[in-house]
């Protein structure tokens, strides 16, 4: 076997949704043996759209597929006393537990970190919750838009004539998953050195607030509070229309404003009134008009190529999921992984986040079917026989 950074670790993933499962999945990508522990009805991630084929089905959620690659799956009812005991036995033989229950829930079952570390002092438990384990909001309910609102980022997204705007998709959940992995890994480094595990508390609100490195200190440095942009006179640097779609152009980088003016081929852009950032803010409306006119007959593809290759201008085009699915850059970077799933079939899934020598992310298996590895995992880790598993299933424990 090729050595991997985490191939000596066992991870129990009892988390639900996106962030926790993603955190555990990333540990699996780098070699950890990740066991997903679900209730008999499956975790709620199985009901998240989109579904392969479009219709809801517990084995066809593409979100679930994405965030549960490289795991084995078992079922266990933590609310049955016998189930809780079995979880303790598993945790005794694990290095990491990832969970995302409401604060206090695992404690009520005797399964929180203080209860488990008596048996396994080296255990790292990572909790990812909307507002963390402490503080006045700890029992508040969360969710994507709640994280966006309470982090500050929504207050600066959108335009002043409309309501604040959440970004598309589930960015806060992905971000929280990444941070779960970050914190778990650094805690493991400490554990490797000291032998002592600990409880890692991750707040999704704080994760998103951590991206506010301009906005937050603006206030503590000057008292200034940023808001949303005005709907007019602010197009440059934001999304602008062209012949077949939209593009974004940013000043700075290696290109001068003169290069930008040449790229658009409009002589008026070299006027004094656009010469520096402040001038471009003050004369924003006139600038918008010139740029829209200059771009109206040009395509996204041509502009992206010319701006990037010929002028070295910071430039982007609004790509769709179809563009990304066919993107040669992503192919060249080994972003996609072909996954063969027993119910979904063969599908190309986003997988490679970065490249690294020696211990890169390695794909080993698709997302588990519900309870798929009950016999294998309970047999291997706890020595249960097929009959044991059968009896526990009849008792509603597995």
């Amino acid at each position: 076997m090729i050595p991997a950074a985490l191939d000596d670790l066992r991870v129990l993933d009892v988390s639900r949704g996106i962030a926790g499962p993603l955190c555990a999945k990333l540990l699996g990508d780098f070699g950890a043996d990740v066991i997903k522990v679900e209730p008999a009805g499956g975790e709620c991630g199985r009901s998240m759209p989109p579904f392969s084929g479009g219709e809801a089905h517990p084995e066809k959620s593409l979100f679930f597929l994405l965030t549960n690659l490289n795991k084995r799956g078992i079922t266990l009812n933590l609310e049955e006393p016998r189930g809780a005991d079995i979880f303790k036995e598993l945790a005794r033989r694990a290095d990491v537990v990832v969970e995302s229950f409401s604060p206090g829930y695992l404690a009520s079952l005797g399964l929180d970190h203080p209860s488990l570390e008596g048996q396994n002092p080296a255990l790292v438990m990572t909790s990812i919750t909307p507002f963390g384990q402490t503080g006045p909001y700890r029992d508040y309910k969360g969710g994507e838009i709640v994280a966006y609102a309470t982090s500050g980022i929504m207050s600066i997204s959108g335009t002043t004539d409309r309501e604040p705007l959440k970004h598309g998709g589930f960015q806060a959940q992905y971000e929280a998953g990444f941070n779960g992995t970050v914190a778990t890994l650094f805690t493991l480094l400490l554990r490797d050195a000291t032998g002592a595990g600990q409880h890692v508390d991750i707040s999704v609100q704080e994760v998103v607030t951590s991206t506010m490195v301009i906005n937050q200190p603006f206030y503590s440095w000057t008292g200034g509070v940023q808001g949303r942009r005005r709907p007019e006179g602010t197009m440059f640097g934001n999304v602008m229309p062209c012949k077949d779609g939209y593009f974004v152009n940013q000043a700075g980088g290696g290109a001068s404003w003169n290069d930008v003016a040449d790229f658009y081929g409009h002589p008026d852009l070299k006027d004094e009134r656009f010469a520096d950032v402040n001038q471009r803010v003050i004369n924003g409306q006139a600038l918008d008009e010139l740029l829209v006119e200059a771009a109206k007959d040009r395509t996204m593809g041509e502009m992206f190529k010319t701006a990037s290759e010929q002028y070295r201008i910071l430039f982007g085009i609004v790509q769709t999921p179809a563009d990304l699915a066919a993107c040669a850059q992503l192919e060249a970077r080994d972003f996609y992984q072909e996954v063969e799933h027993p119910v979904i079939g063969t599908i190309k899934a986003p997988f490679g986040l970065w490249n690294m020598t020696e211990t890169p992310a390695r794909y080993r298996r698709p997302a588990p079917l519900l309870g798929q590895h009950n016999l294998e995992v309970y047999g291997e880790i706890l020595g249960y026989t097929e009959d044991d598993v059968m009896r526990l299933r009849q008792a509603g424990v597995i």
Partner: protein
Amino acid sequence: MARLPLEGIRIIDLGHVFAVPYACGLMADMGAEVIKIEGPGRLDITRDGPFSGVHADNQPGADSWNRTANFNLINRGKKSMVLDLGRPEGREVLKDLIRVSDIFLESFTPRVMRGWGLDYPNMKQLKSDIIMVSNTGYGPGSGPYSQYPAQATTQEATHGLAHVTGYRGGIPSKAGQSFVDFLATWACLMGTALALRYRHRYKKGLWIDIGMYQLGCYTVSEYILDWLANGRLGERLGNRHPSKAPQGCYPCAGDDQWCVVSVRDDEEWAGLCRLIGKPELAQEARFATHRDRLAHHDEIDGIVAEWTRSLAKFEAMERLQGAGVPAGAVFDARDVNLDPHLRSRGFLETLRFPPERGIGERVIIGRPWRLSKTPLSVRGPGPALGVHNRDVIQGILGYSDARYADLEQQGIVATRPTQLRPLAYMEMDERVRRGRLAYWDPDFKKRLGTEKDEPGVDAPRAARPAPRDPP
């Protein structure tokens, strides 16, 4: 004091702007010794130029490059060394430092590191088990975009986020605030931690090659999968949820005050109906399931907004949460800085600057992780430019006084920039007038509890428009 995760680890930070420097700042919080290297004529752009951000009290002062908010937040707890890497003598110092360091992070284009003989194969010759992290826009390799200049603000479009962000039925919208940079920050941290564990177990270093573009694409994975499996391109939903309802951002009492509400199941829907004094709505068939509520979303939005409109946003949040309905006031930067929850968790920390820097105390964001047995905290402000030149070159590398003096005389090391990009200064009032700020609050220090005498810099005293009432 409890042992920190990166105690004894020495890191060279040759990154700029956000992604790599922020990762290094967070590693300084975790106990690493981080040495940030800048060129005498090429400062980090968070120190100077039109995109450097804002200076303490909006006063550039005599050393503007040491006074910006972004630089000091991102680069907290580091050492600063100024070294001219364009000259061979400067690169020799760097190479000596690499020989006694653990991790080297950089965000140059691959051409630059190769040109200096400091790409990974060469780096390994200097220190066999070095961990090297390279962060670029699109990632090196054979792909068509590999050489394209990139910045987070333009990548939001290319990596697919803008396509799915925007008001319902409207044009695509940018996310802002350099979104993908932070994904790269966390990728740097994950990669570095994995590398340290690998090195510890197998006694070998490695190279981590991060392209920000693919990190951004990853966070729209479900849209890519929906396209591949079902041929759907995804749509802009504004603040709505793809499968649950109602969800939205509703106006509250006051100017530009908002609260979001997100109902995840029928029980929460019933709770919302009771709270707003219309329990009968929960019985209505046309609102019975998510599917029904999605079909009548506009009507529900009107009903919810009618209730929120008379309440302060924090009162709306508390009452909704009290009724078991997920909700959140839309925090602006002042709300974030003053939030009792974030404060009680220690997430907001105070940087204390040495008196000679004339910045006083400033509140910054800490880290979104809390370890039960290892309290972490920021370990100091961002360093004044070149202030640790001697500590590094003589203290760590052991160069003689004569050799150090020689480097200084040649301008290989420096404590003042040889050139500065022009600033884009604007008075606070004008920033508001031009729409660059929503408002400004001259009493911010009083509210934050950071009002201190700051020698050398006067606090702003001119007449200001009244700020909004605090929450």
